[in-house]
């Protein structure tokens, strides 16, 4: 891995020192590592799996896996990328184990009634419904396709990065994303709510 700007180098050194402290079993370092990366890992897991009743267990498992493999981090990739890779593996195993079906928890505030004449409220309601429908379609995809699509289209990662995270080639990743997109477009053709939700996105 190449590090050019001083900020990146400083972060890299910080990561190395933090990992060293973790490896000595220092609880404060463990806590610090968790706190530094938890939001990003949680966000990634959330975008891949949607609102999920098992999220606590998954986040916990991801970090426990991180610590179990921490000695294997060779500082070739940034610590964040390496942790993301571990988290993606956890998500993949979860999807495989669950037979693609994700235990979806009700969205926070689903019972809130939005006045119809409130334009902002109606848009938020559409977004909520659209998200539910989108993840329902994602549930039908293979774990690998779902990971590729969500990491690229929802989590906003570049194809090359997604390929690295899932341990696949860029071509294969691109193909999976394309297939998933096709499947979602087909579903949207039959579902006006999903169509409208997707049309609002670029």
């Amino acid at each position, binding site marked *: 891995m190449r590090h050019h700007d001083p900020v990146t180098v400083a972060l890299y050194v910080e990561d190395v020192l933090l990992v060293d402290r*973790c*490896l000595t*079993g*220092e*609880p*404060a370092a*463990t*806590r*610090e590592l*968790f*706190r530094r990366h*938890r939001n990003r890992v*949680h*966000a990634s897991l*959330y*975008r891949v799996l949607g*609102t999920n009743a098992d*999220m*606590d267990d998954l*986040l*916990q498992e991801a*970090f*426990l*896996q991180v*610590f*179990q*493999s*921490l*000695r*294997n981090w060779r500082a070739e990739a940034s610590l964040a990328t390496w942790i993301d890779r571990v988290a993606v593996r956890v998500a993949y195993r979860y999807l495989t184990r669950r037979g693609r079906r994700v235990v979806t928890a009700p*969205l*926070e505030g689903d019972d809130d009634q939005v006045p119809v004449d409130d334009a902002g409220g109606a848009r938020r309601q559409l*977004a909520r419904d659209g*998200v539910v429908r*989108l993840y329902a379609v994602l549930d039908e995809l293979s774990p690998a396709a779902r990971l590729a699509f969500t990491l690229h*289209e*929802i*989590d*906003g990662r570049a194809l090359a990065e997604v390929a690295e995270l899932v341990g696949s080639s860029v071509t294969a990743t691109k193909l999976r994303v394309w297939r998933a997109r096709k499947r979602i477009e087909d579903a949207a053709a039959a579902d006006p709510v999903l169509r409208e*939700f*997707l049309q*609002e*996105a*670029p």
Partner: protein
Amino acid sequence: VTLGQRIPIEPLEEERLVAIERAVVSGASDRLAHPTREPRRFLVLAAALVAASAAGIVGWRLHDAPVAPVFTPSDPPALAVRTEAERATIDIGDARITSDPATAFRVTRPDGGVLVTLERGRVELAVDKRGARPPLVVRAGETDVEVVGTRFSVDYDGLSAIAVRVDEGKVKVTHQQRVQLIGAGSEWKSSTGVVAAIEPRVVASAPVAPVPPPAPVPDRAPALHDRVAAAPPPPARAKAQKIERRAAAAEQPARGQAAIAADPYVDLKVAIRKQPIAFDPKLDGNGDAAAEIARLKKVAYSPTTLGGDASAALYRIAVLLHKPLKQDAEALRTLDIYRRRFSRGRELDAALWLRVRILCGRAIDDDCRQAAYSYEEKAPNGSGGEVAVRITNAP
């Protein structure tokens, strides 16, 4: 706006995050201890290279004329002792060391002195007066306990917690470059650094796995351990200890200062106390705290009271319970009610800080850290934020 930005991420509640963090921190040590090993081919390659180089060097050396062996002075003899299931006693002539089960220590004699390096567990020592002889030192982690007097024990968990208990005489404890003299009837702990008076210990009966006593030395006064081997100390000794303890109590202010300096959390505790309490009864005044609480309760729990007044009243009740009345358990319960009822109350930051102050005033432990964590999360702009972060990172 990308698709991702349009999908709201449901934040994890603080309690859940705290629970996950605790599980991760507690599980991490176990996972770190049992890592998954990836095959490291480069290591195998490196090992092969090193072996080839070593073989080459050895061959070259054998090819040359024989080289005379170099003798280096051997290390001073060391006695390594590990007791797993039983107490054991060893006598090294001028000291007798009794160890608890699951204790590991090593005895060396550098420069005529005695160095007992305690790896973990607990040892009790009965030591002859050192006089002009080099010192006897018990080393536990980074703490040195130097024997000035006679009978004491050192308890070490192998990581950081060390307790030194002195039954007779005096010892000198050097911890983090601070030196403290601990007298008879006192106990020092690395966690607090506080020297506290203790009850005299009843001397243990015969050890389970005794080492045969040393052969009697003519014209030599009986060793101290011979004198203290009997169970409770003789009345005269007990009386002497009582006098020593009284003297130690008289010295308390001076010791207290040293103890505060040695407390690893002393700065943190000072910082916590320095943080002002919103509505400090001392500053804002309250004549009769109990009467004031009774009045505030009517306000807080009245159905006709507006939210803002009720939350203020509830918070003030907690402050009054904490500060003049020192009913901290009740204050914490009140603060919990406050948090449940007024999750967006005007005094929420202050209430969260009061929890930190109460819980961390007792000890810098998990409850305290959780309170600090809650404060840090829910009151990110609170004036105590910096202190809260320090608390959560306190070892």
